[in-house]
């Protein structure tokens, strides 16, 4: 018997968890619909090259998020050495004072330090490669309240882990993927002297390698980006996440742009909101959302292990710069003036006469035909420059932190 819309609408809907590589990106992600964000402080995480958050920024970011009803999870997912651990208690106590909603941890020493120094809930990072029910049960006894399952786990397996271990599960839905079992790659450690599990990953898996097979006599080596993974895109299988009651769907990408943070948050939140209100997805809508996700920088998309074991099609055998993005970030709204004009902080140049798009927090993208561009001295200009400020006529629906994009001329 088919369920009524009302029955379907009462169904469980996952949390949308977006990356926040900086305070600005946190505001963008939450404004565009993320239910929660994850971010790193200046230490203890896995993105040493990211902007990350100072204590002041953390304070402001948590305040902003909580004011909007969003949660903040702080990553402490490095595999820390003893000397790193010495500095952790005071930071954990600081996070506790901010009332962050959870910390994401992969190291048992860090878990115990967090539990001894705070009342912050602990989520187990994907770095710990928790892949099965027995593993989840173990981590639960260690005090973990949520498992971010390893990327090798299917949605159905994650659902089983939740059910059998009686624990919350979080799962990646979008973004770049490690090819290795997370936490089990130390290429950077031994070839570049940078600990990949303390934030120094040099992305050696994205290099092109010449492969010389032992059994082949030919002198010719096979050249391939054989360790590079395609990007994950789970929009088409969102119904499966819901069916298996995955508590949180997570987007990778703390190092990525404002356009990325905004687009993925907007697209996935629109999809989840639609489901929450209607109890189902329509295939044409899934296609529309998929088109939106093609507008951000990405490698070839694949569903990785979400439904079936990742196969040959999940190897991104191309140079790293060969990405498939259709659009580039034009800039971000940094000021609006009395519904007269908006001020854009320009990231990629655009010209008079072009059409750009503004992404409002709700609703479809708004096309803007550039009939006039002014600089802040009110001089008309024909071309904007990166890292400059320009004024455009006000567009209804525009707001601070909106992002603007432009189609790439192919």
């Amino acid at each position, binding site marked *: 018997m088919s369920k009524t819309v009302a029955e379907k609408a009462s169904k469980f809907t996952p949390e949308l968890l977006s990356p926040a590589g900086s*305070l600005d990106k946190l505001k963008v992600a939450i404004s565009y619909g993320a239910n929660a964000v994850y971010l790193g402080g*200046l230490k203890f995480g896995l993105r040493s*090259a990211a*902007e*990350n958050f*100072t204590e*002041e920024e953390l304070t*402001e970011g948590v305040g902003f998020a909580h004011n909007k009803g969003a949660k903040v999870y702080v990553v402490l997912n490095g*595999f*820390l*050495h*003893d000397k*790193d*651990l010495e500095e952790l208690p005071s930071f954990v106590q600081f996070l506790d004072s901010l009332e962050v909603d959870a910390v994401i941890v992969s190291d*048992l*020493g860090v878990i115990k*330090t967090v539990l001894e120094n705070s009342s912050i809930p602990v989520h187990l990072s994907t770095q710990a*490669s928790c892949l*099965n*029910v*027995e593993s*989840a049960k*173990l981590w639960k*006894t260690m005090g973990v309240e949520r498992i971010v399952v*390893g990327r*090798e786990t*299917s949605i159905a397996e994650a659902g089983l*882990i939740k059910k059998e271990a009686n624990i919350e599960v979080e799962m990646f839905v979008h973004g770049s993927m490690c*090819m290795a*079992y997370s936490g*089990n*790659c*130390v*290429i950077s*450690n*031994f070839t570049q*002297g*940078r*600990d990949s599990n*303390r934030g120094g990953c040099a992305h*050696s898996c994205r290099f*092109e*390698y*010449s*492969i*010389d*097979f032992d*059994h082949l006599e030919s002198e010719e080596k096979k050249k391939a980006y054989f*360790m590079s993974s395609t990007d994950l895109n789970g929009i088409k299988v969102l119904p499966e996440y819901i069916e298996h009651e995955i508590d949180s769907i997570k987007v990778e990408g703390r190092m990525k742009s404002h356009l990325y943070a905004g687009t993925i948050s907007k697209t996935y939140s629109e999809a989840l909101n639609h489901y929450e209100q209607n109890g189902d997805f329509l295939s044409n809508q899934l296609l529309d959302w998929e088109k939106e996700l093609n507008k951000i920088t990405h490698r070839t998309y694949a569903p990785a292990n979400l439904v079936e074991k*990742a196969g*040959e099609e999940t*190897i991104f055998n191309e140079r790293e710069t060969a990405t498939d993005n259709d659009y580039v970030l034009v800039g971000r709204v940094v000021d609006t*003036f009395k519904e*007269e*004009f908006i*001020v854009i*902080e320009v990231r990629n140049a655009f010209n008079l006469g072009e059409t750009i798009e503004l992404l409002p927090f709700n609703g479809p993208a708004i096309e803007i035909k550039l009939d006039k561009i002014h600089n*802040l001295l009110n001089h008309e200009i024909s071309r904007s420059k990166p890292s*400059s*400020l320009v004024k455009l006529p006000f567009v209804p629906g525009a707001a601070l932190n909106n992002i603007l994009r432009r189609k790439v001329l192919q």
Partner: protein
Amino acid sequence: MNLITYVNSIDQLEKCNESGLKQVILEHKVVSRFGKLNTSEFIAISTRARELDISIALEWDVLMTESEFSLKSDVIIELKDYFQSVRVQDAGAINFAVTKLDKKIQLILESANHNLVAVENWVSFVGEKLERIVLSIELEKSVLKEYCEKLDHPVEFLGLGRILLFYTPRNLLSTLLPQDDEKRTKSMTSGKFLEATGESEESPHKGFPLIENSHGTFMFHIKRLFLLEHISEMNDFGVDTVRIDMRFDNVFEIDKIKELSTSTEIAKVYKTNYPFDVIKGYFNINKTDVLFKKLKNTRIQRKDSSYIGEVIEIVKGEYMAIVIKKNSISVNDEVTFITPEGKEMSCKVFFLKNSNSEDIETASKDQLCLINYFGGVWPKSQVYLNTSI
């Protein structure tokens, strides 16, 4: 000091016996990353080991999704009469071994676990079944010494062998072969290996050994870890067992290694004649975090309560645009800029305008404002009130 090694045949087992080893590691092709033995071969070696009074440690080191877990654990149960200890790394395997298996446990903590709190808590979880702790080769010797002193359980450390850099369950090599290459499908068969070497123009290291088998694809360091001349030093630290990994060698020289483990000088001679390039890894010191400071510009991080915001545009001779991120700024304030290059400079706010070029007295959080131009300041410079940085 005990030595332990991997055994793949009865011949190798006999050599271990002759060298006085009391325990060896057996790998089964279903549960061990580099296992080649099927069940009957495993049982045959185990049976002979029992006759020789040699204890068997079964290496259960594959990582497993839930779908694979029961298949692997079934093999463990099937073999339960043929091993005395189980070596586990996957947290699920650890939990299974603790709660469902009546065997001694050798806890593989080689992936991470670089702090004593973690190690002690794993030890506590495993409890009385714990036989030995296998520690990470990323621990430098001073830390290894400290752990040996503080832990109540025997410690094992790799003394000789390949350094595993990368482990994925995906088949990355066979896909590069032509469809008609018989190795293309064989590597996906349990116990069969597809081997190659790889090098990249983006890395100075040439000739990374690569293996694909039914458990996935593995990449190793181009050099072997060689710590045999430090065995007596490790013995002094209190390391209980040194592991000798000859699985990827053409010769099985456990007898020679047993002999040289008693003498640093003999070990040095052995090293000279050893057919592979070697390194000591992080045994002397691990400084893999020192480069982190160079990965980002700390000068553009906001610092204290006098923080105001960031310069986002400069028009020479006209104005500097600042996004106010905290506090507020007023006409006649003294402000200090810290540029991305680290230069500090101060100036007085002579005028303050909004984005419509209207004069304003004060600009507060989240506002965009324009102030008088000051030479030497760059976009992304951080702005602080007064001079108290």
